[in-house]
């Protein structure tokens, strides 16, 4: 038995997938979800083999939802975005269906997935997609994190700095700290480079939070932030921050 979850904020868009799936008796629909929040819960609960996922959804989009899941399942995106926007993951094994899609196109995507299912592990493909910089439909102006069973949306301007922490990063805001399973280079690439600077192997800093830079030892410096936190600057980090600030 193959379990799938459908996540789309338009009921009619889900109903067409449901209809097309009727010719695959080995597939059962574990749950239908209206948004990413329901999606995260449903995936945790049902551990589906495959997810049909819309991209533009309320509050958090499809990419952000996947970021919240430790072991993302295989995904087939269903979206009305044009090809340009999804070119970034065209080369991945993960397929995408452009709305409106025909039954033939749908079955082709599903057959492809069924064939590849036993050969290589799809899950790691979803993982690679997410660790690489995907061309997001919107500019990245927020980061979505999980906090226990809650989902929090942090506007990027509230971020003080980001610190590397094994396989995770710690995201510091004025009062709180959030853990997220991501790499430093992911955020270095996806956040606005004129605002967020990699000042150290283990630190990315928000320039808007900077109050002052003080010398620490010979050739090393430390940045003081509005919250009072201190962030060390490496030699190359100091050069980089100076060039971004135009000094």
């Amino acid at each position, binding site marked *: 038995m193959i379990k799938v979850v459908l996540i789309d904020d*338009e009921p009619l868009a889900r*109903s067409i997938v449901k209809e097309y799936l009727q010719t695959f008796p080995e597939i059962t629909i574990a749950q239908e979800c209206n*948004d990413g929040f329901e999606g995260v819960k449903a995936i945790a609960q049902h551990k589906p083999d495959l997810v049909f996922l819309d991209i533009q959804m309320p*509050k958090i989009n499809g990419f952000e939802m996947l970021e919240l899941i430790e072991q993302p399942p295989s995904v087939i995106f269903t979206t009305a975005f044009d090809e340009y926007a999804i070119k970034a993951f065209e080369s991945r094994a993960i397929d995408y269906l452009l709305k*409106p899609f025909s039954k033939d196109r749908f079955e082709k995507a599903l057959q492809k997935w069924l064939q590849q299912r036993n050969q290589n592990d799809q899950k790691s493909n979803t993982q690679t997609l997410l660790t690489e910089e995907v061309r997001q439909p919107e500019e990245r102006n927020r980061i979505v994190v999980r906090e226990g069973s809650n989902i929090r*949306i942090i506007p990027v301007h509230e971020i003080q700095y980001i610190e590397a922490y094994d396989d995770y990063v710690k995201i510091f805001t004025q009062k709180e700290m959030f853990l997220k399973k991501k790499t430093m280079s992911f955020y270095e690439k996806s956040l606005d480079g004129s605002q967020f600077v990699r000042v150290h192997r283990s630190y990315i800093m928000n320039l808007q939070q900077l109050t002052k830079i003080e010398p620490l030892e010979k050739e090393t410096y430390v940045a003081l932030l509005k919250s009072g936190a201190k962030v060390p600057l490496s030699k190359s980090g100091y050069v980089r921050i100076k060039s971004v600030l135009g000094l």
Partner: protein
Amino acid sequence: MLTNLKIPLTLSLPATSKKRLLIAGTSWWLLLILIEAYAMVTTFSFSWVIALTDSVNMNLLIAAAGYITYTSLRYYQPNAKNYLYLTVWSIALAVMCTITHRYMMGWNLFPQENEYHKFLYASQIFRGLLVWFMISLIGVISWIWFFLQEQRAGEKREQDTLKLAREAELASLRQQLQPHFLFNSLNSISALAGSKPDEARKMIQQLSDFLRGTIKKDDQQVVTLAEELKHLQLYLDIEKVRFGHRLRTEIDKSEDTLYLTLPSLLLQPLVENAIKFGLYDTIGEITIRIITSTQDNQLIIRIENPFDPQTSHPKHGVGFGLSSVQRRLYLLYARNDLLSTFQIDDVFVTEVKIPQPV
């Protein structure tokens, strides 16, 4: 040197034609000096020194008077009815020139040349007429010149306005025919075609009517609020097929606003923004409210949508394409204050004011 700063914007001449005018004027002027001097030498047998001094002095005065005429015409363009004023003005200048010339030449230049002084006295009427003729000529040429410049500038302004309007038309078409909206609607139709063919057919009809209304309307056209709301309703009906489980709309149209006018297709992009903002920024059911009213001879339309103030910062513009509507209003009314947005708790308000023809 004439500086562009002094010239009113509408009359700024291209540098090359200004230069050409200057060269033509100066050569004409030099030629006149020579002809006059030559005439005095041959007809009245004066020496070249006297003839040239007289001629240069006279023509310098004419040039000064001509420059005054040219400059005043640049800033003040009399219409055909004011010709009397122009005539008086040119006669006064001619008299002043002639008298000044007589006194300058007669004061202490060539005291021994009695013949010349006689000639100076005898020729003043004729001189006056000649000077008047020259000044009038300069006046008429300047007037025609500035009139043509003004006309050309006016034509250019008109062309620019038309071009901007066309751009706005394209922009607003793009805005209305959001591919995202179109493809998602087609997807809904595809879903309905299998299970509820009648509803699919109905939605195709709605979508066609909506698209037809969008395409055929002239961007410059002014419609009544009643017509605009009718077109908007088509759009809302389609969105309700897609989001009926979450989307509610309330239109509160006061009777006295229904026949007020507004530029066609203005509301739909604003409402689309509100719906997108409301649907994607919150979870659960949302209500979009459209309220019309009138005040100070203006039609006022308010569009309200809920949002989440905790995660959204609409002030920083989170991609709400209101700018093209703003630009269109600017093109039509030359005002930037007709579209405004503000928030009341968790409600985001877009307000548009349309001045009514008096």
